[in-house]
């Protein structure tokens, strides 16, 4: 693995397994009376968030704090970014202040790569535009591994707005690396060009796909997409691609439902499905996010910062990596 975590494509199967194993051990820290270990004492992690986020930022913040790192939270609102400061100048400023890791969320796809060129600090991609969200993919894999013994042949459907979803892209990369069989389900307007190069099956018919899946991952529908004409109405979307009680009954008995949050209840997922105690692992995903991010921060910052495992250069999505 690289010094940074920019793309799920940079992670080998061994890297992913190491992250998940370490996360399983670190999860126990959360059960202790003292929910803290001194591992990253004296290290500083900066959460550099140019887009709104609650769960990802808080999850990274808690993860860093449980490892005793100092945390700076930077949000674009109310900062010098609103006075027109560029990403590069912000990066140089943070570097001058001596941060060891920068966790970046940015609206522009590729921003973490630019940042990694400018700074010595470890860069972690916490979501860039419609491109990637590798830590979400890792926590999703961790959650799947809690329920299923192996990824080999595991059938995962990712349903919804694949076109604009960084969660879908990173999940496809990580899941195919681990040997899972991924099916993307969406209306044709919400699938990206050249999706066939992703290494996942593609379907427009949710009802045909559902009964065969072990995992059904629902993606958030961004409501402004309807105004942009990607689908005729929210009601039609919900009817064709929403996961309701009837569709839940069509799923295999052992199958689980995932959602990266925040949910639009009644659109991509019905409330009764989201709250299903037997099927929904959505709350687990949130809890697991902290353990997985602790593992990543430990593995990226706990050594002489050249990453861990064998380096693997990630190629941009849709090219040779997914072949």
């Amino acid at each position, binding site marked *: 693995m690289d010094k940074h975590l920019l793309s799920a494509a940079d992670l080998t199967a061994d890297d992913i397994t190491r992250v998940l194993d370490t996360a399983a*051990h*670190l999860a126990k820290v959360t059960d202790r009376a003292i929910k803290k270990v001194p*591992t990253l004492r004296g290290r500083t992690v900066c959460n550099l968030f140019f887009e709104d986020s609650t769960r990802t930022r808080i999850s990274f913040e808690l993860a860093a704090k449980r490892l005793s790192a100092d945390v700076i939270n930077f949000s674009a609102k109310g900062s010098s970014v609103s006075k027109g400061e560029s990403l590069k100048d912000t990066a140089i400023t943070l570097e001058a202040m001596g941060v060891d890791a920068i966790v970046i969320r940015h609206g522009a796809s590729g921003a973490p790569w630019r940042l990694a060129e400018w700074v010595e600090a470890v860069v972690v991609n916490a979501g860039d535009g419609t491109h990637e969200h590798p830590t979400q993919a890792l926590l999703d894999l961790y959650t799947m591994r809690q329920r299923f013994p192996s990824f080999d042949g595991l059938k995962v459907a990712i349903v919804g707005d694949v076109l604009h979803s960084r969660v879908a892209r990173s999940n496809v990369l990580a899941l195919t690396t681990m040997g899972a069989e991924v099916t993307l389900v969406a209306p044709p307007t919400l699938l990206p060009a050249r999706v066939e190069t992703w290494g996942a099956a593609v379907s427009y018919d949710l009802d045909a796909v559902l009964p065969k899946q072990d995992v059904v991952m629902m993606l958030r529908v961004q409501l402004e997409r309807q105004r942009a004409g990607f689908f005729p109405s929210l009601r039609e979307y919900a009817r064709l691609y929403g996961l309701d009680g009837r569709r839940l009954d069509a799923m295999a008995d052992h199958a689980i439902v995932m959602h990266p949050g925040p949910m639009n209840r009644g659109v991509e997922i019905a409330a009764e499905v989201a709250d299903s105690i037997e099927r929904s692992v959505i709350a687990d995903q949130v809890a697991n996010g902290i353990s997985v991010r602790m593992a990543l921060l430990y593995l990226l*910052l706990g*050594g002489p910062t050249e990453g861990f495992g064998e380096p693997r250069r990630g190629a941009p999505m849709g090219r040779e990596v997914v072949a």
Partner: protein
Amino acid sequence: MSDGLEAFLMSGPVTVLDEADVTRALVRIAHEIVERNKGTDGLLVVGIHTRGVPLARRLAAKLGEIEGRQVPAGALDVAMYRDDIGMRPPQATHDTELPFDLAGKVVVLVDDVLYTGRTVRAALDALTDFGRPRAIQLAVLVDRGHRELPLRADYVGKNLPTSPGQAVRVLLAETDGSDGVVIEDTDRKAVAS
């Protein structure tokens, strides 16, 4: 003592403790623990990952045989408490399993080899995060010297004078297939290869 000296002078791996020696050392340590603590009341045995864990289980079993009542055993991972974090690649993590309250108890910490003392220091910090035992004692199968911290063991299976260029390997049936302690000259091996 003469075994260690012999090993020091020889190249190649030398077995300094065989299976029977390891068992005898553990039985003696178990009796010393009972004697020192006047029984096994309030005693907990905690092994440091990786090879301290099976050693702790064996010691707890021996203590149980001697006193006729079970002694709880636990496992402690110190990877997150080491003082060399950031100086070498991140160490593998393990599960810490301490299914008991430490408060007021006597914890016998168990490791395979006592060397610089840095692992034991990390273990003392880790234990402190789980509670405040009445006392902590240290049992090791091999003490090879070269301490870098002011620590000593309360129970030692074998004192083994070594040079820093040598590696002491403790082999256990649980992790390596059979029991034994082997000493190797890593400097010469490095030159040879």
